[in-house]
């Protein structure tokens, strides 16, 4: 996975000064715990849907977790991003980094979300990176690539582009999104920030694509991932594996319950 950053990552001077009085949050070994949640909207068998997923990472000691370095999200069998009309255009990472979303076609957007991060000298409640965009990137070894664009303003000023690769998965899972998460330095040469939570969508909700028709650009909504036509016993399983900078790891799982049967007639 390649990672791109437009600027050196920095925080405000005031926060940097505060950092001098604090120990890095991840300096000591901690026990990470993660929770994962996922949902479909609409939640109907066979329907085009938007997948919402999110995770939270905490430690039993109440400290910030170590910086996250990789995330492997596994999705249920039968859910396949390649069968959608999402990502009809390719977004080039360099253009995304240079111009932000304006550097890529609207038809490359896959979803969006936000994240909370903890700077080592933070209050403990986390600071929001309000804009995370998911876009279709250039394929790698024939596999679909999802680009994530994180646009942080304060206290972490960072525009990051990193990527996840959609790979096959087995058993109850049909695919996995293997993502290498870049380290985000709080200040140049300083400790890295910790990711506390991420929320994101993959799907057509609130996305508008455009096509040319008779010389005009016509907006349309892309077709999303289809909820499988059959629900496995116990629901649709999701799981995530988290690996941290210090080499530790943890995992979490979640299940989307089978939707209620629709009444006939």
């Amino acid at each position, binding site marked *: 996975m390649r990672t791109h950053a437009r600027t050196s990552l920095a925080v405000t001077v005031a926060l940097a000064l505060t950092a001098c009085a604090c120990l890095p949050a991840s300096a000591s070994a901690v026990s990470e715990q993660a929770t994962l949640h996922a949902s479909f909207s609409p939640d109907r068998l066979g329907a085009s849907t938007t997948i919402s997923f999110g995770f939270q990472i905490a430690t039993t000691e109440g400290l910030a977790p170590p910086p996250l370095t990789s995330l492997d999200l596994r999705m249920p*069998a*039968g859910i*396949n*991003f*390649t*069968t*959608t*009309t999402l*990502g*009809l*255009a*390719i977004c080039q990472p360099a253009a995304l980094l240079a111009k932000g979303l304006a550097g890529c076609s609207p*038809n*490359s957007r896959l979803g969006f979300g936000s994240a909370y991060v903890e700077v080592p000298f933070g209050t403990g409640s986390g600071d929001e990176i309000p804009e995370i965009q998911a876009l*279709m990137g*250039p*394929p790698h070894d*024939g*596999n*679909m690539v999802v680009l994530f664009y994180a646009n942080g303003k304060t206290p972490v000023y960072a525009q990051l582009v990193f990527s996840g690769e*959609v*790979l*096959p998965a087995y058993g109850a899972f*049909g*695919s996995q999104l293997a993502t290498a998460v870049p380290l985000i330095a709080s200040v140049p040469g300083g400790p890295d920030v910790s990711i506390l939570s991420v929320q994101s969508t993959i799907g057509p909700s609130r996305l508008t694509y455009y*096509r040319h028709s008779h010389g005009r650009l016509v907006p349309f909504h892309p*077709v999303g991932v*289809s909820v*499988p*036509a*059959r629900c496995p016993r116990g629901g649709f399983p999701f799981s995530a594996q988290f690996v941290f900078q210090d080499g530790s790891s943890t995992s979490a799982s979640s299940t989307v319950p089978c939707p209620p049967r629709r009444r006939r007639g």
Partner: protein
Amino acid sequence: MLSGVAVLLASVGASLGVGAALEVGVARAGEPTAHVSRTISLSETAHLHRTSGRGITIDQPLNEMGSASGTIRGAIYIHLKLPAVNRVTAEVNIYPSGGSITGYATARYSVDGGTASFSGTMSIARGTGSYDHASGSGLSFSGTIQRSNDAVSVHLSGRLSV
């Protein structure tokens, strides 16, 4: 007489780049029958459109129909399934004049923006009519899918014995 036909076909086939061989079988009545097989170099291109389904999944095939042109001509139907994110399987039915050919293909599948592509191999499962004894060797199966409308272009090549 049969051997004479075989020699004739072989000589005609040689001039056309087509090989011929003689197979001898036993009919129901116990009388020997003969089938003269010829091997042709297959190169088919077809453009298809969706007839049902929307997108392909493991349990929902993308059904396509169109016309094949090249070595043999006729209607072509393809049913595509996606058992994994990077693999596609297909049932291919071609209806040339005088019979039909059915094959199964498996191919690597990848998505590049608005176009998905696949490339793999195909085997002949059965034939009918003039293609009753159809078999293939070294058959390749490749093509593209326009993701916006599921239009498919497919190319088949290799050696076909009929």
